């Protein structure tokens, strides 16, 4: 097995490792919490964080944590990550399905981000009509970005789990690129010519 197969193997490891880490984090800064923002983290299989405290204050303004998302999401998410990791291993062992392995994770991430954004939309548009405090009407927190409501600022950003997963995705893209016999971008190559690339990465088809 050529050393190049370390790429999809490394991708598999990174993707599996991401399961233990948060994919997405929301942090709320408000005058009532000086130096101690409320945080919410989304893992592949659950939400975690200051949910109790968020709901104590959220009740007063009509919101409920965590953002609504069906339980099946937290079943499909880890299953998908594991499946994609296994696909990367298959690529490493057989040099097959590299293009599929390179593209499917991107589709997966797009679905996750889209689903997450929809969930946040529902979160901000399902305010309790009997909420006592009417400081704001419906709002939509961005999946990535900042939501400002008066002096309350909530930052939403991809967390370390996403970075590990994306790193794995990039490695799979790179491997597929190399398997296709394309030259490396200048940054990654050291005086290579296409003949050398072809020799090193020729697949045993």
């Amino acid at each position: 097995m050529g050393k190049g197969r370390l790429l999809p193997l490394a991708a598999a490891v990174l993707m599996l490792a991401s399961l233990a880490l948060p994919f997405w984090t929301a942090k709320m800064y408000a005058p009532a919490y000086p130096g101690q923002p409320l945080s919410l983290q989304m893992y592949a299989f659950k939400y975690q964080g200051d949910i109790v405290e968020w709901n104590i204050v959220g009740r007063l303004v009509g919101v409920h944590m965590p953002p609504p998302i069906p339980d099946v999401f937290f079943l499909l998410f880890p299953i998908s990550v594991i499946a994609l990791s296994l696909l990367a291993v298959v690529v490493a062992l057989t040099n097959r399905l590299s293009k599929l392995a390179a593209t499917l994770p991107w589709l997966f991430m797009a679905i996750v981000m889209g689903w997450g954004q929809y969930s946040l939309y529902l979160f901000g548009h399902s305010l309790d009509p009997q909420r006592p405090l009417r400081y704001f009407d419906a709002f939509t927190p961005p999946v990535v970005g900042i939501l400002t409501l008066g002096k309350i600022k909530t930052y939403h950003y991809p967390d370390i789990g996403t970075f590990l997963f994306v790193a794995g995705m990039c490695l799979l893209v790179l491997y597929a690129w190399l398997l296709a016999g394309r030259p490396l971008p200048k940054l990654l190559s050291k005086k290579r010519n296409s003949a050398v690339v072809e020799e090193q990465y020729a697949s045993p088809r």
Partner: protein
Amino acid sequence: MKALLQPKVVAALLLGLLAGTVVFGLILGPVVQGSATAPNQYQRPYPMPHQYWAQNDEFYVFASGGQQGGVYVYGVPSMKYLSEIPIFVEDQAWGWTTEDIEIRKMLTNPWTGELITRGDTHHPSMSKTDGKYDGRWLFINDKQHARIGRVDLDTFRTGQILWIPNTTGGVHGFNVGPDTTLAVQNFEHEQYPEKAIRDHLGLAIDPIKGPYVAGVAGINIAGDGTMSNAWQVWGPWQFDMARIGWGDSDGWIMTTAYNTERATDAVGMFQRDQDYLFFWNIASIKKAIAEKKYVTTQQAPDVPVVSWKDVEVYVTPIPLNPHGLDISPTGKYFLTSGKATTLIAAVDIEKVLQAIKDGKVIGEEFGVKILDPNSVRAATMDLGMGPTHIEFDDKGYAYVGFFVDSDIKKIALGGPYEKLHGQKDKVWKVVDVLPAHYSVGHLVVPGGDSAQPYGKYIISMNKLTKDTFLNHGPLESENHELFTIGQTPAKLVDQMPLGPETHYSQAIPVSLIHPKAKHSYGEAAALASQKPTVEYDYAAKEVRVNMTVVRSFFTPGALTVPEGWKVKAKLISGETAMDISHGFALDAYNVTVSLDPGEVRDIEFVADKTGVHWFYCIWFCSELHMEMRGRLIVIPQGEWTPDKETHLPSA
């Protein structure tokens, strides 16, 4: 592949992996306020940045409240009042009321069943490990009712009150030993005790004319801070100050008596030339108990009472009517001040032990050997009028307060301390005089009564304030004055009024308290699982309620009760956020309870007033604080029917 293993590529990949999270964390992390500059560190920076004192205070001070019945807490050098911790006296402002069953039990005399809500806190003593402050607990006595309170320093809340038996009250000197397993409490006010004690002592005690007797109580402290009465030693004298020795004086308890005359009036208590410093051998007390040389009383059948005749005890004369008794950091010297004189005696424990061995005795009184003062003293200093208490710093100096002279004299100690201060020609002499405003009672140097003084500051706890602050009526506050002592002369930094009348204090580094102090009594998940319940017990005529209290709702929000029934409510705070306390104050009833984050309180009262009574939250908790209220609906007798019971919606 090799291209990927270039150092710059690997570095770029790693940075890329971490950059997003790290950068977000740095951007979103709280901005830490830096210290503003000021001409010197004791001057207030202008404008002052937020959290300046939270970041710059070095010590907590826990000052006895005296008639306030608890302790005051403030920071040094800010001299900012932080809080009060009620112990022996109800204080609804600081969440200490007897509607709470646990607090009521603590304040109820275990022998008479009487609820006592008056107290007089005098001598706080910090828990210690190897003679050094460890910041776990603060113990303090109630002079009036002979009790010891323990404050838990993670919650700043009283955790236990121990009642001391066989005395009507009037205790004074109190001290926790170097390893927090034993504490001692002196009986200052002479007693006419139970017959069992009188017979055991074998002294003639006339209940009307006196003279009376008194003792020293030993208190065991367990590993979790639980106190229990261990033993008592009784004798002919009363005792004022008490110290448990450490280091050079390990194994001994020292006490002073200002009324060795055994008089019953103030003039009579000053008629001798000198009074006594007592040395009690702790092992001999335990030996007497092991040999069953004790009695017990009807009040306290578990507490052995030993006669002074059955223990190893010595006395040595000290200046008349001693006020202070303080031990130097190595445990070698005991400095006592005779308030009727201008004298301070420095007694050396090594000389004491040698004198005992060599039989340097000049007489006996009540069978107690009197050690020759010339054989046991390191020095006798003539310093000024009305000496009171003494503290020590980390540079080999002692500080003596003076009530009449209204100042503090700084003394260079001798012996092993000479190498610390390097002033051999000034040993046992005054090196500085600090003016006090006015009339010093106690002094406190951080750690100054322990094996590890921290030095740097001294606070003069002045008894008279007079013209120091704005006029505020005939009953004046006390003045705590802060000086720096790292240089000579000492310099005044600040003055702070506190309620009358503080006595002694303990000052401890912030690092031993601040990181461990809790903001909540409970964990969020556990609290969120608590559910409200209501139960009507027709046999016991009680309504039992579990009431959840969380922003901004009481649940149940309304409670119906038949007139005359007892209401037993468990108030459960669902909060964990810092500084979000709630409370329960009931209109028309004598019921006010504070509820801190995560706290659970059991309260009970009788619903004896009919009608609709609102209960409301007492601390501003949220925008809905005013609306955070509920109803207690008391139905008159004869009008109650079970269909009026409160029912909670099913989950």
